[in-house]
């Protein structure tokens, strides 16, 4: 460490950290502490309302469904493409990041065109005479879950795929030479050794779903009430700033609980 450089360091750090301290920490501390007493009094009332409890569970349920669906898609694809078909894995790597560059509003519009009353799925099902009248998919939990699956699949996939990259080939090869088929290789070697990747993916997806806003508001109409939708309602419709602040804090705590919880679990697993 070059000691005489501290002036340069402070000068270099100042602009970015000014923004972080002034805006991020400033707004958080200000919003919580300028109004601390009334927030404290109101906390139990907001958190115990049936409105809040219902939307908390909706949020968790949607997150869980998306975690499971994205893992179910990611595991076989990552396993197969990594250990059996490297060409495919390059294709997936290139494609998986396209949606992240596209405006979430446009992707939600795309899902409206797919899931709507006169959308792609209903048109297909009616054409194939599976159903007579269009199904209601849009503005239900399922629509929101599908939209979020698209949004967060890339994160689950990369988390799982990169943990598979750390598995030594010798291990897989020796299992194979001892006669293990793909299922056995997956069950006994790849799955246990990539579980931390899944956990990382799950925490990102859970946290993302708990805080997602565009997708539930467009694909859920106003019928799917997640925490972020509730927050928006308190800000925009009921103008109840205290309740909105409480919801914002609950979302923040939930997200951090997922991330730190999973990190702790990973550490425990490592030791064990």
């Amino acid at each position, binding site marked *: *460490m070059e000691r005489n450089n501290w002036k340069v360091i402070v000068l270099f750090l100042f602009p*970015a950290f000014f923004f972080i301290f002034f805006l991020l920490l400033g707004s958080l501390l200000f919003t919580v502490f300028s109004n601390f007493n009334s927030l404290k009094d109101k906390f139990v009332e907001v958190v115990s309302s049936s409105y809040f409890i219902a939307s908390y569970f909706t949020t968790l349920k949607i997150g869980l469904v998306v975690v499971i669906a994205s893992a179910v898609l990611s595991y076989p694809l990552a396993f197969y493409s990594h*250990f059996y078909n490297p060409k495919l894995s390059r294709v997936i790597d290139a494609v998986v990041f396209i949606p992240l*560059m596209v405006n979430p509003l446009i*992707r939600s519009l795309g899902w409206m065109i797919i899931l709507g009353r006169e959308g792609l799925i209903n048109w297909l099902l009616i054409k194939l005479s599976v159903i007579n009248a269009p199904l209601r998919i849009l503005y239900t939990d399922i629509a929101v879950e599908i939209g979020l699956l698209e949004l967060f699949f890339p994160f689950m996939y990369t988390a799982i795929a990169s943990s598979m990259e750390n598995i030594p080939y010798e291990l897989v090869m020796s299992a194979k030479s001892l006669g293990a088929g793909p299922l056995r290789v997956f069950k006994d070697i790849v799955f246990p050794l990539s579980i931390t990747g899944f956990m990382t993916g799950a925490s990102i997806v859970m946290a993302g779903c708990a805080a997602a806003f565009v997708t539930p508001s467009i694909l859920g109409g106003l019928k799917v009430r997640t925490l972020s939708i509730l927050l928006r309602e308190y800000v925009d419709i009921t103008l109840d700033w205290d309740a909105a*602040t409480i919801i914002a804090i609950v979302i923040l705590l939930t997200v951090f609980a997922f991330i730190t919880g999973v990190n702790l679990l990973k550490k425990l697993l490592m030791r064990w």
Partner: protein
Amino acid sequence: MVKILENKIPDILIALLFGLTLSIILLPVVLPLTISFSSSYVITFPPQGFTLKWFTNILLFKSLIDGFRFSLILGITASLTAIVMSLPATYAFYRYNFKFKGYLGNLLLSPSLVPEIVLSFLLLMYFKALKISYSLWLFLGHVLILIPYATRYIYASLVNLDVSLEDAAVSLGATRLRAFIDVIIPNIAKGIIAGFLLSFITSFNAFSISLFLSYGETLPLPIAMWNYLQVRYDPTIAALSTILVFFTLTLSLIVRKIIGLRGLK
């Protein structure tokens, strides 16, 4: 990578899964494209006929045109500011050791860890209470959410930098600051440009922060589109989406050309 195992998983299963994944990823991006040429007045599937009228129809909606211009200006100014703010800090992190480096590093990335909707709400309350001029709200909010992105991409470009260049400049009599401006910055220009473009895309697409912090008549494009969608559900919005998809994908292809595929992660 070598093919190390014989293929025993049924190909058809993998093909199905791959197809399903591809359609989940690509269909919502591709479908607005097909609808934007449909001659039907509402958005229905399958698209009917062929017309370009929806593209010219965009021009009739002042809110969309103004929104595009506004988002463009906001994105450029906020990304430039975020880059200028984070460049020296990122370099200090790369080059020097100092106390609390780990904590400060996390703090620098923290705007991307706090959910955007929570951040947007907190900033709204804060700006109101501090009576900060409305015209600055969106700019400040966007700069804040862009700092972690800018930092990450600049850091990635620093990894290939030869730091002895700076020491050489200093030993020849330049100050640290001079060496940074004249020697380091030109050497990482590519990373800076890529960081700028990706920050711009992020700002251009940002939704929650734009929704909470916009005020008055002129709205950022995503919010203008959202308002439009709540009133009309016609192919005009699909046509605009098509243009935007090409716009942002072209930008990200340029980034990919500059820094390669790995840098995008």
